[in-house]
């Protein structure tokens, strides 16, 4: 049974907006840009960028930098023998993020849901994997800069959520006693303070359902809004 929370911890990518679509268009634009400049086919570039991503992830492990587009691009350029590319790599990164942001829209109901929480004086935190710079830029883009009391990124925590480090960093900021906490994310590791909190998993398929002990699935923030309102009543 859901209870009104004192604190809600959100994830960002694929939780508040459709990361997959934005990333898809970002990659396409990047491949097109690289293709125009290097005269290589975009399909080869897309595949090879995947390889670069795997290589960077293998090297850096579960860290924020392992998500860095700039590092993927640099690895790609190095392996394809494009040297002296400092400026070009930065340009490519900008091409990716510009297209990414252009194709990012918050899920319907996000603003209203966060607004309702804040109206009810419920604290809202954001805990997210990725480098701080781009996550803060996304928050500005989505006009969410006044929506969270605290933002923790995996870059400042020294490891992704799957390593548990962001949770530890969060614990240094917040003392939990009897608080009711909701964690909202799209992956199981987004279940922050899992022993003390209720997990609301953002899924694509329709509906709101209970799928385990203090675990719920939802597809639309409108469902969360109506659930919250019924809890208030």
């Amino acid at each position, binding site marked *: 049974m859901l209870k009104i929370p004192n604190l809600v911890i959100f994830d960002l990518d694929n939780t508040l907006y459709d990361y997959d679509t934005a990333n898809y268009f970002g990659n396409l634009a990047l491949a097109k840009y690289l293709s125009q400049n290097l005269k290589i086919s975009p399909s080869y570039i897309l595949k090879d960028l995947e390889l670069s991503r795997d290589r960077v992830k293998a090297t850096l492990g579960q860290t924020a930098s392992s998500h860095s587009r700039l590092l993927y691009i640099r690895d790609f350029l190095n392996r394809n023998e494009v040297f002296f590319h400092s400026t070009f790599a*930065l340009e490519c990164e900008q091409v990716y993020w*510009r297209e990414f*942001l*252009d194709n990012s829209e918050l899920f319907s109901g996000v603003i209203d849901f966060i607004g309702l929480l804040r109206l009810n004086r419920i604290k809202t935190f954001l805990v997210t994997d990725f480098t701080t710079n781009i996550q803060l*830029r996304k928050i*500005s883009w989505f*006009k969410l800069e006044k929506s969270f009391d605290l933002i923790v990124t995996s870059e400042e925590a020294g490891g992704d959520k799957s390593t548990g480090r962001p949770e530890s960093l969060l614990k240094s900021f917040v003392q939990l006693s009897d608080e009711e906490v909701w964690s909202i994310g799209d992956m199981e590791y987004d279940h922050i303070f899992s022993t003390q909190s209720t997990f609301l998993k953002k899924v694509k*398929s*329709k509906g709101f359902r209970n799928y385990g002990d203090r675990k719920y699935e939802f597809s639309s923030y409108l469902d969360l809004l109506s659930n919250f309102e019924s809890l208030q009543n």
Partner: protein
Amino acid sequence: MMNKNIILWFLSRIIIILLFTSNIQKELFIPFLSADLSLIDPWSSWLENSERLEVFPYGYIMFIFFIPAILVNNLTMDFFNLNVSLDFLVILTLLVCEFYLFKILRVFKNTSDAVWVRFSLFSPLAIYITFIHGQLDIIPGILIALAIVFVSKNLWLRAGLALGAAIAAKFSFILVLPFFILFFLSKKVNRKNGFIFSKGLFPGLLLFLIPLTYSQGYREMVIGTPEVLKILDAKIDIGVSSLYLVPVLYLIVMLSFWALNYYSNFILIAYSGAALLMMGLTQTSSVGWLYWSIPFLIHTLKNTSKRTQILVFLWQLSVTTYFTFRAGEIPIRFEILSKIEFEVNPNILTFMYTCNLILGIIIVLKLLNESLKYGDIYSLSKKPLSIGIAGDSGTGKDLLSNNIAKIFKDEEVSLLLGDDYHLFERQDATWLSTTHLSPDANDLELMGKNFRALIGRQRIFVKHYDHKLGIFTPPRRIDSSQVIVVNGLHSLSFPGHEMLDLKVFLSMDENLRIALKMKRDKTERDHSNINLIAELISKRKPHYQKFIEPQKMVADLYFNVTGNEKDLLSYNLEVGSKDKALLLDFHRIYNSIVEIPATLSKKDEELILFFEANNFSPKDASLIMRRYVSLSDQLFAQEPYFPGGIEGIMTLTCLLGAVRKRSNFA
């Protein structure tokens, strides 16, 4: 997971198809399509064995849509000895067509407004025409839906191709062409699009005309169809003559379109649909005509009020009832129920027709009214968008106004130059005692009068001041355009400047300005005496402080360019505005895109946004524009191209400032 709207549509159509059958298909189209037809000239091959002209009065494109059904019917018979009923295959074709019609118009999209989706999926008229009465008008309907979508996206070649194909399928769609012609003639920038559109139209028109050359059957069945005469059905008898309603109402819609001061793509679509709707609702013999406006209605209703959507639904219900009563029967597919037959008193039918006509006209007026609101969110039909740019000489006024002119396309901008209102030529002795900065040395009264004339959409004639020679040249004509830019020393102080939508003031660090002005005047305006320029600049200072600088107080937006006079390629920019929300929003979105952030500070209690010389790219500017400017197609006929760097930031801020002032969403 299957889309809910698709499931809803599919189930409802299956139920309707299972319940009802169409007499018109059984009596007309099926015999035609099941005959032994030539794929090149089906009409003549039909007439070899029949004298019935009315069975397929449609063009070749319409026939192409049924070729798969004919082939499946023949091949299953030849190879598998299976008789797949052509009746079934025709319904399947119509079902597929309707699926794509809704897909093209994005009706199935989950995020679409639910009331609009329900209205589109369960439009009583569309269901009756296609699946009960059995007309084939949905086929040109898809083509016209494609044309609508391409027009919305400014894809003119494709729009032309789709409309051409719709005309080739059903010649009646030629009736929307005058609206397109008026649209293309309305603005110079649209004429280029019109040329592209007509290239797209060409193949469709050829497809319509070519069968005329070789097919007697086509000439008799399609061109000579008595359907055309139905246009004269609705008439009011006046003495010994009659007034035909269809052409009168069509012309009223067309003339009201012609009389508009401003056209957007959305308005073009709404008016074209209204004209077709008028055609449909003034006749009583063919319910299929009412289908022509359905794709337009679906597209337009998406952005109208719920009340209008409900009104249109009720009107459709009433029109459907009228045509059902007129037919006197509802054909049931299986003989579980016998055919439902009834007879309705002719007076009741006449009363219903009258009500439907009146309600239909009210709906057309309401739709046009609402589409003018949505299709002109910047109120450009009321008056042109005007931007005044003031500042001292050499602060970048020309550059900024040229950049603004470029994003709107030069031919759509009327540029009023303050220099043209100087009272004296350069060699005049008056300049020994005064400067251009003094209002007394300029005919500001005339400048204001000319500005007001342009705002009132009148053309003006203005003598031009040639900077190179320092003399006036003969008057030139300036036509009023959608955007008016007033660029000059006194652009924010001439009589009538209050009417400007956006008032912009430019300034520059003194040393940088002197260095740049010397560089410009030496190279572009052919002054040779640098010492004279320096002396002139210092002489102008008191007049600048007295007459030019105070204009900053009335400016909505001001820019101050700073930088190092030794590095004339790299500037910084300070932006201030009365509109704090504009600065805050711009600051936020700029910093989310660009690596080197802009900084926000307070100077004399005013917010100042500071940009360092940077690599702000034209694409960054376009991205911000897309994010901020809703329905930008109403401002730009083509994708605007912004400059990069500081120039790009200035141009973009001016655009956003002007848009915020004019947006009726605000």
